[in-house]
């Protein structure tokens, strides 16, 4: 049932509010507009120092350049592989932990310690852990860059996964498993056959958040991915900024290409995102 739309009266306050809202929108959106327009402008035009939002002549050369010449697809590929595997591991280990934490009692407050630690980890800046991890990986002879990143990213995605999944697992009533167990299933079976299917949407939402987080990760990738063929998307963009100062067309084209998957994911989980913030009445 659609809620009855309140009529917006034409008072000064309301008009002012709408004008302000418009200003806020413009501020939020103009950089994005600039990015889109720069990616379509000819180099001649954005070097002309003219103030123009929309390109007078649209060119697709930058998109071509970024994909064919600069190997952006390689960056996307690396990032995708690392993000997806990281997420699989984090959601896998995290869901098991979340299930355990919502279903079992633990001796000596182990669960509290675990949760608090998961929270504390998120306050640690990546650079702090990178130094010992760098030495550790060298000593252990682990040199595959993707493997290193997948392991390193666990530090930030696992706590996220655990905290999100605890919320989802809590929503599933314990009676369901007990019912299954009464019917003769083992605890483990009950978990896998009954609970997991129900929490699947939650798993999906968590997975997407983990992917978003891994996509953005910078510090570990900067230090461990040193060869251009190993670069992830953030490092690819950063190297553009520091090496090729005026290749803006390609930079913005690449930026848009790399944002597309993320924006897509975010659109999918937008409902969860806003709900997570406690906002009602949206969608």
């Amino acid at each position, binding site marked *: 049932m659609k809620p009855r739309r*309140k009529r*917006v009266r034409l008072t000064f306050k309301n008009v002012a509010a709408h004008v*302000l*809202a418009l200003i806020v*929108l413009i*501020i*939020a959106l103009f*950089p*994005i507009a*600039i990015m889109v327009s*720069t990616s379509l402008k000819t180099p001649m035009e954005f*070097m002309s*120092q*003219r*103030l123009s939002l929309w390109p007078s002549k649209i060119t697709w050369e930058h998109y071509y350049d970024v994909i064919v010449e600069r190997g952006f697809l390689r960056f996307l590929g690396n990032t995708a592989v690392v993000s997806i595997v990281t997420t699989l*591991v984090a959601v896998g*280990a995290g869901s098991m*932990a979340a299930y*355990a934490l919502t279903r*079992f009692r*633990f001796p000596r407050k182990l669960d509290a310690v675990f949760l608090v630690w998961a929270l504390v*980890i*998120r*306050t*640690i*800046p990546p*650079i*702090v*852990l990178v*130094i010992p*991890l*760098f*030495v*550790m990986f060298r000593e252990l002879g682990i040199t595959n860059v993707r493997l290193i990143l997948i392991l390193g990213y*666990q*530090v930030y995605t*696992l706590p996220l996964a655990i905290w999100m999944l605890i919320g989802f697992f809590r929503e599933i009533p314990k009676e369901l498993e007990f019912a299954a167990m009464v019917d003769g299933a*083992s*605890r*483990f079976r009950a978990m896998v056959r009954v609970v997991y299917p129900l929490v699947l949407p939650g798993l999906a939402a968590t997975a997407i958040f983990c992917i978003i987080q891994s*996509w953005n990760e*910078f*510090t570990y990738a900067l*230090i461990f991915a040193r060869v251009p063929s190993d670069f992830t998307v*953030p490092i690819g*963009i*950063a190297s553009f*900024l*520091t090496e090729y100062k005026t290749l*803006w067309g390609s*930079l913005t084209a690449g930026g*848009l290409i790399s*944002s597309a998957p*993320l*924006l897509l994911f975010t659109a999918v989980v937008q409902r969860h995102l*806003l709900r997570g*913030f*406690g*906002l009602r*009445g949206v969608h």
Partner: protein
Amino acid sequence: MAKTIAPPVGRAEQISRWLEKHMGLLLLLPASLIFLFLTVFPLFYNAYISFFDYAFIQRLFEFTGLDNYRFLIEDELFIGSIKNTLRFLLTATTVEVIVGVAVAVLLNAKLFAKKVILPLTILPMMFPTMVVTAIWAIIYDYEYGFFSNVLRTFGLAPVRWLSDHRFAMESIALVDVWQWTPFVVLVILAGLQSIPDYLYEAAQLDGASDWQQFCHITLPVIAFHLQLVILLRVIDGFRLFDKVYALTGGGPGHSTETITMFIFKEGFRYFNLGFAAAASLVMLLLILAVSLIYTRRMWREMCDEA
């Protein structure tokens, strides 16, 4: 009562019973192992390295006790980096909170097409951080950037946003503000939505002005959200690295060199791993101190309210 004799239990049966009995702990094991090896152990290792002069290239590993920490305190660049980080934190967090609250209040009002406006307003938060950084690098550019073009159109001189030491850090803070104010908006908006309309209507009938309504109804309710958001932004602010690396590399001079940048250079340019480890521990202590002081206050206030 006679005891029934249980049938003898087979090996497989024993194992599966043991697994069931300890299922909770076993399920927690993978995550615990990951935490142990990738967070707990590295932290201790970091502390361990910090007492050594560990020069990676020369393969030197020599015990030097507290020397690294002594050098840190004497190092004006390190102290400077702490100042820079705090400067960024203060600017970014303050602006984000003030603007965020204002926008949240705005969006909470009866607006036309609210369902469209809200997702659009939080769009900046949805872009990958590096892409945001790239956009602003272009906007800030002295020769060809958007801001410079605008200024020139009005006959003014372009500003060296990222290369003037007086406000380079603030320019970087502005990028952070643009990106993360939506986050503040969302959190505060959630708090605002929990305030029922009739409170405002009653206050209005009593003759309270908008500002009074804000101070006495809105603020107390969102106080918790405010403190939460400030804590989160501050903790995030300490981690600032990618924007600085890509926009200024620590320059001009040393004016945008944050603690993270300092550690990065020491550890991965000069490969002075022991020294960098010491610096990162100091940084960790700083963050811990700030968050503890803050959370205790929040905790106490929450408990007072309850």
